[in-house]
């Protein structure tokens, strides 16, 4: 059964990634996205062989627990399917930004229409990535149920989390428990802004980051690469998140994972930044060749510096010192490029056009941190999602650490750094309003990663507490 789920998840992720690349390619070439693209990608993905071994479960869950977990997940999926399909988006960004684009693309799956091309035409967040709208539009055109994408995103996140823990621990109880804990996190499944069926892209981004984190935990490079690739094409935050994962893997020094993360992140960044440039210049300039070269140089620098450090017999101190530089570079380069080649007043440009705000608003830092406490632990309806990772890290910090947990822990810390920087750099003056409207959605993105980290730490703690 698990093997079947693993195969299906792989085919689904590969389908989405191939469709994303193909669709963005079509939009860049100023042609319509063909309706056959998605089924064609699905057929190819099903035919691509998947070589992975799932270890037999060392500890099975009782049949009653399996049935109860399956029933709970079925109820949640049914609720999300109903919420997704019953109406169009019932929340702000879903209606004004995401639905509006999906609606136009369903009418004509091309950017060659005034809504996208004419900068006078009111188009909310013109520079947002287009994977979700074009995917919804394509499914809508052929089946009339494009909004099933939201349910699919939830299923992907749940499956990736459960399978990764099963592969890592071989313990069905841990995998089932963590999967339920994630799936029942209220902020993800409540009918609220940013929830999976709200029409926002935060649910799909949460799924992508969960897949990438699952790749780290399960040691699956393909999941890591596909998760980061899809994250960049889903929401602007995908660019710095991808940089955070690459920086974390670089810091910990895992060559194979680093190649996967770098390729996934930079391939998508090339496509996404080219599309932003195309939209910003009304299709008159092509940035793809230049961005391809730039991203290849950046990738070579990341991978080359890692190999150089490995040759120096893994000089940990030197890696840490260079790490500060690498982390800063990888977190900043994506947003900076987006602001330069894309819309200067767009989603990143608005934050980066006055970098001095970062220093002049440092006095806001305590309020931002208090906001994290308030929304992550109390008002954000995340339950214990954000309490457990720091507690478990404290409990396991003296145990022999493995690379996967270190990578995930560092990546999540870098996410927090990105979020703090966003609140300090924001053009929005009313900090409390910004925290209230944005922070729960940012926390949504890493909720799957947080549960993966907690479950991996707990498994480690259990192993250490058992007599040899």
């Amino acid at each position, binding site marked *: 059964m698990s093997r079947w789920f693993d195969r299906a998840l792989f085919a689904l992720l590969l389908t989405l990634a191939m469709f994303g690349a193909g669709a963005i390619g079509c939009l860049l070439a100023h042609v319509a996205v063909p309706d056959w693209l998605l089924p064609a990608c699905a057929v190819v993905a099903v035919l691509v062989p998947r070589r992975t071994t799932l270890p037999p479960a060392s500890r099975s869950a009782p049949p009653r627990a399996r049935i109860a977990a399956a029933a709970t997940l079925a109820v949640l999926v049914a609720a999300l399917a109903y919420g997704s399909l019953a*109406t169009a988006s019932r929340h702000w960004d879903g209606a004004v930004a995401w639905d509006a684009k999906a*609606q*136009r693309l369903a009418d004509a799956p091309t950017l060659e229409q005034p809504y996208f091309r004419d900068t006078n035409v*009111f188009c909310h967040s013109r520079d947002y990535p287009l994977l979700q709208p074009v995917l919804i539009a394509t499914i809508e055109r052929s089946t009339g149920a494009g909004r099933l994408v939201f349910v699919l995103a939830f299923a992907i996140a749940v499956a990736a989390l459960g399978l990764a823990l099963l592969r890592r621990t071989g313990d069905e109880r841990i995998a089932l428990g963590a999967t339920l804990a994630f799936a029942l996190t209220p902020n993800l499944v409540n009918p609220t802004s940013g929830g999976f069926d709200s029409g926002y892209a935060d649910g799909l981004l949460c799924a992508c980051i969960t897949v990438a984190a699952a790749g780290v935990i399960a040691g699956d490079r393909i999941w890591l690469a596909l998760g980061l690739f899809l994250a960049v094409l889903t929401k602007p935050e995908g660019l710095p998140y991808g940089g955070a994962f690459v920086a974390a893997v670089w810091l910990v020094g895992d060559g194979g994972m680093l190649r996967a993360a770098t390729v996934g992140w930079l391939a998508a960044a090339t496509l996404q930044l080219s599309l932003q440039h195309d939209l910003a210049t009304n299709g008159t300039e092509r940035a793809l060749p230049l961005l391809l070269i730039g991203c290849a140089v950046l990738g070579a620098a990341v991978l080359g510096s890692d190999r150089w450090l490995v040759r120096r017999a893994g000089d940990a101190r030197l890696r840490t010192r260079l790490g500060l530089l690498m982390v800063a570079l990888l977190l900043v380069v994506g947003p900076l490029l987006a602001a330069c080649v894309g819309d200067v007043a767009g989603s990143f440009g608005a934050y980066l056009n006055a970098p001095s705000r970062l220093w002049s608003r440092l006095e806001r830092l305590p309020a931002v941190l208090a906001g994290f406490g308030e929304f992550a632990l109390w008002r954000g309806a995340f339950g*214990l999602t954000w309490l457990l990772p720091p507690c478990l890290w404290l409990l396991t910090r003296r145990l022999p650490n493995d690379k996967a947990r270190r990578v995930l822990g560092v990546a999540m810390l870098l996410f927090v750094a990105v979020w703090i920087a966003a609140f300090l750099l924001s053009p929005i003056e009313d900090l409390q309003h910004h925290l209230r409207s944005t922070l729960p959605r940012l926390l949504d993105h890493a909720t799957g990663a947080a549960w993966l980290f*907690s479950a991996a730490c707990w498994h480690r*703690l259990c192993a250490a507490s058992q007599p040899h």
Partner: protein
Amino acid sequence: MKRVGATSVVLVLALIHIGWGLARVPGKVLSRRIGDVRAYREQGPTRYLLENNGMGGAEALQWVREHTPEHCVVLWTGDPKGALEFAPSLIAPRLVIPIGACPPGAQDYAGLPLAIAEHGGRRGRVLLIGSPDGITVEVR
């Protein structure tokens, strides 16, 4: 021994989280979602989205939909933040452009006719006026 205690505490915390999530399923996940969908269907998207966000202007957008052709261009002025953000999707496929993008007296924009209608005994170009808490419509 300490670790055995720690794993138990973590297990209890995880179970509390799952139990809390389960307890919220009937009320928040199911009932509230069903209620939201019902309210959306009863009020229609325009009223639901604007009034649920504490903004007025549903009648204005409804009027635009009823009195202008589907494929036309509607002008706007005022504050683009707030209620006006909803206009492009609620009156789609009409395009919404700022009044300054269209010279006075022009009858079309980029090959599409400007929305022209009669309102309050006056005939002219339809203009949406946005403010943070609502939308009004005028003809000029």
